[in-house]
């Protein structure tokens, strides 16, 4: 082994195991040479710690917080409470947002939507989600999720990073850091976003939700864009075709190699490799995002919206294509679920956007044999209140933020299908059985990916920082197949 090779290997290993800011060779990242990254053992030298049940995750984030009692957590007994004040025995003085804390009373707003039981599992699903109802036996409901935050920004940040405040890595970037990429030509963590039709001024999203926090920046999620280049700066400038780009990269590579001969810095070799990877991405990403090759019956499965780039339906189909290419963490964010007023109308729009494509994604993955090792998660950042925000009528009401209970759906790799965990009280206000924290959900996701969540850590400010925090996250064994 020559000294330079030795330095190269050392640097790589040192980076992957120790450094917070790159060593001589600097960051290799999830994008380069995954074979080597994994051969070197990724940061998780002893991974897998557990049997790998899911090779990848498709996380369908419903941003703004869907109403659990209008979708999956029926409370027929509430009809008798229509307009009556929420009993203090239920509210127990728990804090409210200042949007409703000034209300003189908290009138119970029963859901106006009909529920029925579906599949052999007899799962209760609202009439708003007929397509999801058709795959009821694939789904696992956790009706007892809870969170600490009560406002959107801290709540969604908490879900994504395990902390309410900015500065911490998102779950996808933890995976990129821990496992690297399984695809030579694509990043480990891809983000897709869509606006909802249920509410025009949707809650916004922020870069930090897929950011790498204190992890090296190449572990950030790569957000695919809905207009222009799907990946920023992917296209060559007009006037430069792929042949000419190849020519420039050949010159560049040759000049960089000559410099490397002179200098001996392995960082130069890494840069050459990154430019080659960039060139490959220029072909692989358009191939990935081009839906023209999809047969009509598949497009039909996802519904009419699939033809509109940037729609939730198109993103679901894209998610399947990313899953086929072994992207580890695929995350959709669908905005527009924040229904403080006019909920019935707004939620219809949101369900129109998401019901058919979500069900289609499950069916499509299943028929391709991918559902078995793909974990699907569906949910928002908190729940909503049983009491109405603002005016209540039989057919119109709004609901405020509610962190104390809400429903998350799981499906696929390693998940017990047709199962429901947890229960809320008659008002869907407090959990009465099997509470599940966000940390528990994170630990469970990691567990299915073969990771012991204690061991996915990074030295930050002298501490072993983890996605699952310090308060004792538990894998939710009850939902495991």
């Amino acid at each position: 082994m020559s000294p330079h090779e030795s330095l190269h290997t050392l640097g790589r290993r040192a980076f992957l195991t120790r450094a917070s800011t790159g060593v001589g060779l600097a960051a290799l990242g999830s994008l380069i040479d995954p074979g080597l990254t994994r051969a070197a053992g990724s940061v998780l030298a002893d991974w897998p710690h557990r049997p790998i049940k899911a090779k990848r995750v498709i996380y369908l984030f419903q941003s703004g917080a869907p109403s659990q009692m209008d979708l999956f957590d029926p409370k027929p007994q509430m009809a008798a409470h229509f307009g009556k004040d929420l009993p203090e025995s239920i509210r127990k003085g728990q804090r409210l947002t200042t949007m409703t804390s000034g209300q003189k009373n908290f009138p119970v707003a029963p859901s106006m939507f009909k529920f029925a039981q579906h599949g052999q599992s007899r799962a209760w699903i609202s009439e708003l989600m007929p397509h999801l109802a058709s795959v009821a036996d694939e789904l696992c409901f956790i009706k007892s999720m809870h969170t600490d935050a009560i406002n959107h920004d801290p709540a969604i940040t908490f879900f994504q990073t395990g902390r309410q405040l900015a500065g911490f890595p998102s779950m996808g970037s933890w995976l990129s850091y821990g496992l690297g990429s399984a695809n030579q030509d694509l990043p480990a963590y891809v983000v897709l976003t869509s606006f909802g039709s249920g509410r025009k001024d949707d809650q916004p999203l922020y870069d930090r939700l897929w950011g790498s926090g204190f992890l090296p920046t190449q572990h950030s999620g790569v957000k695919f864009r809905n207009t222009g280049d799907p990946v920023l700066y992917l296209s060559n400038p007009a006037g430069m075709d792929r042949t000419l780009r190849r020519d420039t990269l050949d010159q560049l590579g040759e000049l960089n190699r000559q410099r490397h001969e002179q200098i001996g810095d392995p960082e130069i070799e890494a840069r050459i490799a990154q430019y080659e990877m960039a060139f490959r991405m220029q072909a692989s990403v358009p191939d990935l995002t081009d839906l023209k090759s999809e047969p009509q019956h598949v497009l039909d499965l996802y519904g009419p919206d699939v033809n509109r780039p940037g729609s939730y339906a198109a993103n679901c189909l894209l998610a399947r294509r990313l899953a086929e290419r072994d992207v580890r963490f695929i995350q959709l964010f669908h905005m527009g679920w924040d229904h403080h007023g006019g909920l019935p109308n707004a939620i219809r729009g949101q369900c129109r956007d998401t019901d058919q494509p979500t069900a289609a994604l499950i069916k499509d993955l299943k028929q391709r044999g991918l559902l078995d090792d793909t974990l699907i998660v569906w949910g928002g950042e908190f729940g909503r209140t049983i009491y109405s925000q603002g005016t209540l009528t039989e057919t119109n009401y709004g609901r405020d933020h509610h962190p104390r209970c809400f429903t998350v759906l799981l499906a696929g790799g390693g998940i017990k299908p047709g199962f429901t965990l947890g229960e809320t009280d008659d008002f869907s206000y407090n959990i009465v059985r099997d509470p599940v924290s966000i940390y528990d959900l994170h630990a469970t996701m990691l567990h299915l990916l073969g990771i012991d969540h204690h061991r996915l850590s990074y030295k930050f400010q002298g501490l072993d920082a983890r996605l699952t925090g310090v308060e004792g996250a538990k894998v939710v064994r009850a939902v495991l197949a």
Partner: protein
Amino acid sequence: MPTVRPLLLLAAALAGPAGAAERLQFNRDIRPILTENCYYCHGPDANHREAGLRLDVREEALEALAPGQPDRSEVMARILTDDADDLMPPPDSHKKLTPAEKETLRRWVAEGAEYQGHWAFIAPVRPAVPAKQPGARNPVDAFLLARLQAEKLNFAPQADPRTLARRLALDLTGLPPAPALVESFAANPTDRAYEALVEQLMESPAYGEHMAAQWLDFARYADSHGFQTDSSRSMWPWRDWVIRAFNANLPFDRFTVEQLAGDLLPDPALDQVVATGFHRNHRINGEGGIIDEEWRLENIIDRVDTTGATWMGLTLGCARCHDHKYDPISQREFYQLFAFFNNIDETGVIRGASNRTGGNPDPSIKVPDSEQQKQLAALQVAVKTAEAAVRDAEAQLPALLAAWEPGFRDTLAQNRPQWQPLSEETVRATNGTTFTRLEDGSWLAGGPNPAKDTYVIEAPLVAGTLSGLRLEVLPDPSLPGGSVGRNSNGNFVLTRIEAEINAPGLSKPQRLVFTEVEAAYSQKGWGIESLIADATARKAKRAATKGKNRGKGWAVDGNTRREANRAMLLTEEAVSVPKGARLTVRLVHDTLANHQVGRFRLALAGAPPESVTLAGDGAAPADIRDILARARDQRDASQQARLNAFFRAGFDSPVKRADAALAKARRELTAFEDKLPSVMVMRELPEPRPARILLRGEYDKPGDEVTAATPAVLPPLPAGAPRNRLTFARWLTSPEHPLTARVWVNRQWERFFGRGLVKSSENFGVQSDPPSHPELLDWLATEFMQGGWDMKRLQKWIVMSAAYRQDSGLRHLPADFLARDPENRLLARAPRLRLSAEAIRDQALAISGLLDARAGGPSVRPYMPEGVWDETSRYGDLRGYKPDPQGGLYRRTLYTIWKRTAAPPTMLLFDSPSRETCTVKRSRTNTPLQALALLNEVTYFEAARVLAQRMLQEGGATPAKRIAWAFARVTGRPPEASEAAVLAAGLERQIARFRAAPAEAEALLNHGHAPRPAQLDTIELAAHTVTANVLLNLDEVVTRE
């Protein structure tokens, strides 16, 4: 295959030998093992201490350790046992001691288990400089060489002068050196010329910009508030202060005190208050439904964390919820520090409209520049003058009033109604509506109801005065729902009312400008005020609401309120009406389709506007009539005052004119002040807010009250000094403080060598990496303090050293050393470092000649792909980003507008933090997304095209000369023959290619706004652009060698 072994070897090598003969040292040999494996459960955190055992304090650990008797030591027994139930650390902690670590601990106990305090908490003592060795240029070298020579190594040879010139320029200014500078230094690379170059670069205005860029990361500076809505704020005056401070070489102690507590200095200058913007740069939440106190506390905690990280290299935030796990910082001490920052006159949140539209929550100040200060002074004088004129005029008030009263009483006695209906008017519409006159004089609209229509009413006027127009809208059974409007729901939206007077004596129609409006009823969001919003305000509103119709006219809920309604519009002063005049009134319906008024009637008033009421029940309110009815000596003081005010406001007189002049002067002053730049600053409350420990760090779980104090492990505050921010800031830079100088010195080392002497530059606590050269660190720290905290002088020690001037190549180094020092901590060569995000872009602009070097001012908008701000947000005022070709495209990168939730993408790709929280160290990555940006992003591709233009215009007559010219511009050196050959062959291929496809050449040149000289041949230019694109992507170009 090597394993991690060489790193451990290095660690041992760096820490010095711990051979069998030498006694172990706690800080070097033991502390790292204990902190990593034991302190989590047996450390400073009292609430998380297992079995009551504390190992970080010798007195408390003695019994369990049994110094000198390792065989009787309980600690050793638990470490060495095979029994998994007893083993320490416990298996479920995932911590494990190696056999070597166990043996080290055993030996330490055998040697007596002596402790040492953590080095970073003990004030540095100036060490002796090692004897001068050959190759050392200054004391910095002496320390480094002593260490290297212990390894039988030496410095690498000095780098090539061109490399040195480029290295210095990029390190000190963030810009490449001017080619002439490189040439002149290369021609005469003496020590003296080197020093002159250093000084010249440090004096350049670009120096302060480059130094400031990093400080902006520490300060979490941005142009937006950072949470959910992420609307705009104005903090750039603070940013400009930082640039000026670095350029003026403000000593670091003053730099510290002014930013943390400039407002508390005696009689602070404006600049010293602006400096306190440092701790208003944190994010501020404005999300609907938040609880103010929760977010105010978060902001203060952010200030404590940021202060700890920036000045002391401490991770104070770890003590927010519980005692620090490793460092001797208790939770109580965290909240004692918190108390210093808790007394600002602030709500902690954004309130009201500004969450959507942006702005600076209080406290904030206006920051006029020197020219604006002059204008401001003039306007203030004008106000003073007008105030004096009012006082003078007031003296005449009693006489004026006495003269006015009788006549006015007569007017009242005549008791004419204020509103006179129009007479002999004609009514028509521009778009087809027809009108029927009803018996009460009102007009009923009929015929087709067009989408939009304007009603035009014309009528003769009686000579005299005109001050008001009243519109009555009336319900009619023929209208939808029997209401007042023609829309199917019975409503209308009146967009505006225009009125003008025509007269034979007037050369053009006189438009009536209404300044006051009132309606009996307005629909929410459709107020009558919008009828007089002036044209510019209306335009702005229209732009802001984009297609939404709210606020664009007057409506009356006609769908539910089917009632008569009326509104009046008044001029500021009564207007005189000449003989033979005619009035034209236009009722414009331009907002919503079909929303025309259904039935209406107009009336006019001529009395002074102040006296006109909507009801028109007389020229004076009832109380004035009462007062007037009394004889003067029958009125009490308040009645007389009321009458005075009525007269003064409503009737022309010298007093009224003086009042108007004063009001105008004040308006002008306010309008000017409103337009001045503003910056958020610190302003202390008169009485401190009580500070309490927050249990588990939660805002709604307050515990004991605490007062401001510093942690016990650090030096005490001076006795008797007030416990405020100013005392705290001075304490930070007191000579006894063990951290501040070391932390800053270490950051400078990191800046120039890529890695600090303490590698964990973000953490100097117990868990930090030990310094590679502890004596050098302390020498620099003490030298820095004794030299008056002179920042430039400190940097000069570093860049003048032989160590800094070394070659950065790796080829000459012995193989075994590479294996031992892969991180180059001993500095047997200079480091090669990828440039920062800012420097990469600034360099491309500078090389191409596009750079716009203007300093300071509001943040600017360079190229950014469409949709970056809008793809994930429909909130706030930072949306619809458009690059600004009028001066925004080519400014230095630190002036780019920064929206925290969607930061500039090329900045993020090159490892910049999001600026949401204090970040004291950036990673330095190497990714394909960076390659795509440098190859294709318009800034870089335009820079390539403009560089190509200059190759053709300035680079010489032959391709070879042009290539050499451009190569020297991008790298600072001439190309090797083999390098030139690669580029020449490429250029030739490209010329042939574009000859065959000229349209492609044309397309290739069509990127960016920079002009393209018409005389240049398209084919040649396109081919050279491709070459320049290659050059700007060279590893050497994005690297400082």
